[in-house]
């Protein structure tokens, strides 16, 4: 029994490791194929339908997160949201406040559609796959992805905690600071 448990644990670790190391250069996994409408609010008329549970296909994927970090700089997300997500022209991405939602599909639509108060619309300008990589990286800035897969260091000036050491912002209590 003990052996079996050990074997299962090894398999589980190996499987997780596979996902962490997976390289997906072109295809999008099923999770990214969104059929449900994105909701930006919890409030619904009548009986609420469950919120969709779409996750970024790169939430556990080191390569995708690393690409997200590269694209975050290359597409000048960093110029508005801070090199490490602390915010500047645009809001901080490292805290527990999400104007348009922190769910992966909400972030995807925010990046793709843009938002009227200043967020540019990147849809049609960059591939969907890259948007999903950015979604995963943005979530990592708030500690919302696997710490095993999150990027671990800046190539440039270290001015904030590395992404794999950021506390899950959803755990931050909004009371006393």
């Amino acid at each position: 029994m003990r052996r079996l448990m050990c074997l299962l644990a090894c398999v589980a670790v190996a499987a997780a490791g596979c996902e962490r190391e997976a390289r997906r250069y072109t295809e999008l996994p099923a999770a990214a194929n969104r059929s449900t409408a994105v909701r930006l609010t919890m409030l619904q008329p009548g009986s609420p339908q469950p919120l969709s549970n779409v996750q970024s296909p790169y939430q556990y994927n080191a390569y995708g997160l690393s690409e997200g970090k590269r694209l975050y700089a290359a597409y000048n997300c960093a110029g508005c949201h801070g090199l490490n997500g602390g915010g500047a022209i645009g809001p901080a991405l490292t805290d527990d406040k999400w104007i348009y939602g922190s769910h992966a599909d909400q972030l995807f639509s925010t990046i793709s559609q843009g938002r009227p108060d200043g967020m540019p619309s990147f849809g049609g300008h960059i591939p969907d796959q890259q948007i999903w990589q950015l979604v995963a990286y943005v979530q990592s800035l708030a500690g919302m992805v696997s710490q095993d897969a999150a990027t671990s260091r800046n190539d440039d000036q270290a001015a904030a905690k590395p992404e794999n050491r950021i506390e899950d912002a959803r755990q931050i209590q909004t009371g006393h600071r």
Partner: protein
Amino acid sequence: MKLWAHRCVARAALVATTSFLATTSCNKPAPDVRSETPPSARPLSGAMADPSRLAQDDGQWTMPAKNYAATRFTALDEISTGNVKQMGVAWTFSTGVTAGHEGPPLVVGDTMYLVTPWPNILYAFDLTKPGAPIRWQYDPKPLGAAKGVACCDIVNRGAVFANGALFFNTLDGRAISVDAATGKERWVTQLADINRGETITMAPLVVKGKVFVGNSGGEFGVRGWLTALDAGDGSVAWRAYSTGPDKDVLIGPNFTPHYDSDRGKDLGITTWPGEAWRTGGGTVWGWLSYDPEADLLYYGTANPGPWNPDQRPGDNKWTAGMFARSPDTGEARWFYQTSPHDLFDHDGVNELVLADLRMNGGARKVLMRADRNGLLYVIDRSTGEVLSASPFAPVNSNKGVDLKTGRLIAVPEKAPKQGIVVRDICPAAPGAKDWQPMAFSPKTGLLYIPHNNLCMDFEGMAASYIAGTPYVGASVVYKAGPGGNRGFFTAWDPIAAKPRWQIKENFPVWSGALVANDLVFYGTMEGWFKAVDAGTGQLLWQFKCGSGVIGQPMAFKGPDGHEYIAVAAGIGGWPGAIVSADLDPRDATAGNGWGGALGDLKSATTKGGMLYVFTVSGGK
């Protein structure tokens, strides 16, 4: 008419005791409009509405800098060193806007005007009635999308009055004129394009029937310009770019810069690599001054883009410097570059205060500039020759100016490099002083400078140009300069080139300054609005506003004949965005570097725009 010499007859005795020179035309003092006509009956058009005449009336405040010489000095003296302790609030007004309030109220006749940060609503208040109710409001409904390309909070630095009309700009790039009496729209001209990263935050200036407007967007790879519009119909008269060929910069045969390095054909192209001048910055988001006698307009050009200097070898003309131009045609007369090949985001847009000083044995018509690079320049405004350039704050990134060549003397070990973090560069990118305008008193001959004490760590990074997105290429972290205080308020003697007195402030002093006779006013980011003795710097009065003060204080005489001091509170602006935009200072680069310096600002103040009007007469 010399605008910088106020009520010169009364001032004659003082002239003898200071080095400030009364100019000849001062012998004919400006008529005191207040004593001739009751304010409510004062006409808003005709000769008295001419901007240069109006600016001489200390009862009114018709442009942000008070006058064309940008002195921010009023001789009103009801509020004095003796009674300022009794000063209290006369009335307040909530703007309902929670971004940084950098704009000043204006007073024309019996009406006060205030333009808010985005959404740039222009209010008119009736000063004849208790509590100064709203007379009218004009809402230009600027695009929210413009907020996404405004580098440093969504500020507006004010409106200007001339000839019965108000002129102001919107964040989404429009210049607008409305009738001052009714608030009715006169014209709207779209000038800037947010999809190229352009916004407009500056206060225009009106000279001889033209409105001068410059763009913002130096962190977005825009190409800087100053545009002249016809004040009557808003049509564009001319546009002068800050980069590119001479014909675009309006450089012609009458361009006679003082230094060799500014002479040559198409330097706005040849001092850049390839086509980099097209995205080279040099925006015009700061202040303009005007000398009616010389008939020259003076203004500065902002930083070159991107910040990463390794991507733009060369002197990057005509960024980070100042132009003298003809207001009629726009043709350039001279240029001086405060920061050739700027390394540190040291925009050259700070205000240029015009005065006549006795220097080097003679009377000199000068302009004075407290620059981002930490030097207080005194420059001959006829020629562009630097007479002196002295550090007014801790500086280790330059060794002053070579007065033979006019060139800033660089310190190579403090020069940023791509991929390398250079530590402890002073001053930081926001400079020893940023936009916050200083004041000049002809009584004391001193400049009153609100400014910063900041250093930084800077790493150049490759910047990719994507239109409408930031084009910076730098990882920067600011920190307090020597002594640990992040701000100063300094009284500076421009002739002796040294401070007379200095007040340390915990945070950068991001408000403008005002001299009201013997009193100097300024605000702090914690929300204190202070009155100090212009001669000694002694704190005489302070009031804690509801939010940090980064606005421009002004003074006026109300229809009741009493003097009032007014300022808008409301934290924000580039540093205050830590609070107004709720940034996360755990990222030291937040706000493009302020996270490192202002992590404690959120516990010092909260956001909220409020206009305060103070009086010693009890108010109404």
